[in-house]
């Protein structure tokens, strides 16, 4: 950006509106982060101050938004190539990379500071680490370097319930680690199901997703292996005693459906039907996580409202 007088170069004057900055936050990812973080808040056994809990959730949401903006700053080149991401604010020319960087860094600092003030500095440190992990470890390093990118990078998406739990209690517990494990193990089959269908797009952008590097057969096998881990991981809240038998039954049933779909993806390898089944698994994986957390949030809300004992 240059405002030096005497030059004939036109300075850059932004025409971005608040909506463009909102899009930089990756609102859909942010809503998933808030949703899972609510689960992290509600599994806390003792009483919860609702004002502090909402303030902590807002700070966590802002931290997730900052991560999204910084990810878009770094990935602007590949976002411009893929059809799914071409209309994002930077590749479409509405926001410059520098503006996104400044916005992301400012928001990240504000989010961490706010969480430290309203909750505690353990939660704030965990949030800072989550942003660091997503931006530096995942976006800047792993995403373009290894087909295991989303396996390790999945940790960034799995941290929010732990951050939320730490914000309320000031500690990390086995129950919050169980929610971390659930999201962490859920991430690879979720993304690889999409990558099976969109492998050409990822290849065009030069992202080494598993189907493009190791091939679709290996991806199908790994989806099945992770699903075998996910089924028991989904039932952990019940097995560890912080969710009801209803949750236990629901997680087992949904896990079984997940497994059936993963086996179908493993067996159907060619033609349009293979793509359709992979997309079915991708969509079901979203429903799976949504329903598990919905059950957890609902029953824990009733416990906190003294409806259930």
């Amino acid at each position, binding site marked *: 950006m240059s405002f030096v007088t005497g030059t004939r170069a036109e300075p850059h004057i932004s025409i*971005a*509106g*608040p909506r463009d900055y909102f899009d930089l936050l990756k609102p859909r990812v942010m809503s998933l982060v808030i949703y899972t973080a609510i689960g992290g808040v509600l599994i806390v056994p003792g009483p919860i*101050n609702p*004002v502090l809990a909402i*303030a902590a959730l*807002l700070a966590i949401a802002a931290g997730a938004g900052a991560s999204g903006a910084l990810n878009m700053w770094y990935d602007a080149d590949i976002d411009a190539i893929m059809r799914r991401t071409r209309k994002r604010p930077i590749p479409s020319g509405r926001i410059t990379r520098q503006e996104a960087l400044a916005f992301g860094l400012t928001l990240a600092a504000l989010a961490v500071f706010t969480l430290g*003030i309203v909750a505690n500095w353990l939660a704030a440190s965990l949030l800072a680490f989550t942003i660091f992990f997503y931006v530096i470890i995942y976006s800047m390093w792993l995403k373009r370097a290894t087909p295991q990118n989303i396996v390790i990078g999945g940790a960034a998406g799995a941290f929010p319930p732990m951050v939320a739990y730490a914000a309320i209690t000031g500690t990390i517990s086995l129950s919050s680690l169980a929610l971390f494990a659930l999201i962490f193990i859920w991430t690879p089959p979720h993304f690889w199901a999409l990558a099976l269908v969109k492998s050409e797009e990822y290849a065009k952008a030069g992202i080494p997703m598993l189907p493009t590097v190791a091939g679709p057969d290996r991806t199908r096998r790994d989806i099945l292996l992770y699903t075998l881990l996910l089924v028991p991981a989904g039932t952990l809240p019940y097995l560890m005693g912080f969710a009801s038998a209803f949750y236990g039954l629901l997680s087992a049933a949904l896990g079984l459906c997940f497994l059936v779909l993963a086996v179908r993806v493993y067996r159907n390898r060619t033609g349009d039907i293979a793509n359709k089944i992979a997309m079915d698994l991708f969509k079901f994986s979203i429903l799976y996580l949504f329903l598990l957390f919905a059950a957890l949030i609902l029953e824990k809300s009733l416990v906190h409202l003294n409806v259930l004992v």
Partner: protein
Amino acid sequence: MSLPPDKNGQDKTGIVLTPEQKKSRDHRNLAIALAVGFFVLLFYVVTIAKLGPGVLTHPAE
């Protein structure tokens, strides 16, 4: 984009915003104002929540 000559008759160059640029700047400014206002309100409410109902009781009473 040039401005009228100054009092010495010298040509000045400057930036004149188009209506679209001005409108988006106004919208951004409004969004920043609302965000700052929200931030102030959030810290006020959190402070009251942390202090609890005792905040209204004077120690000398």
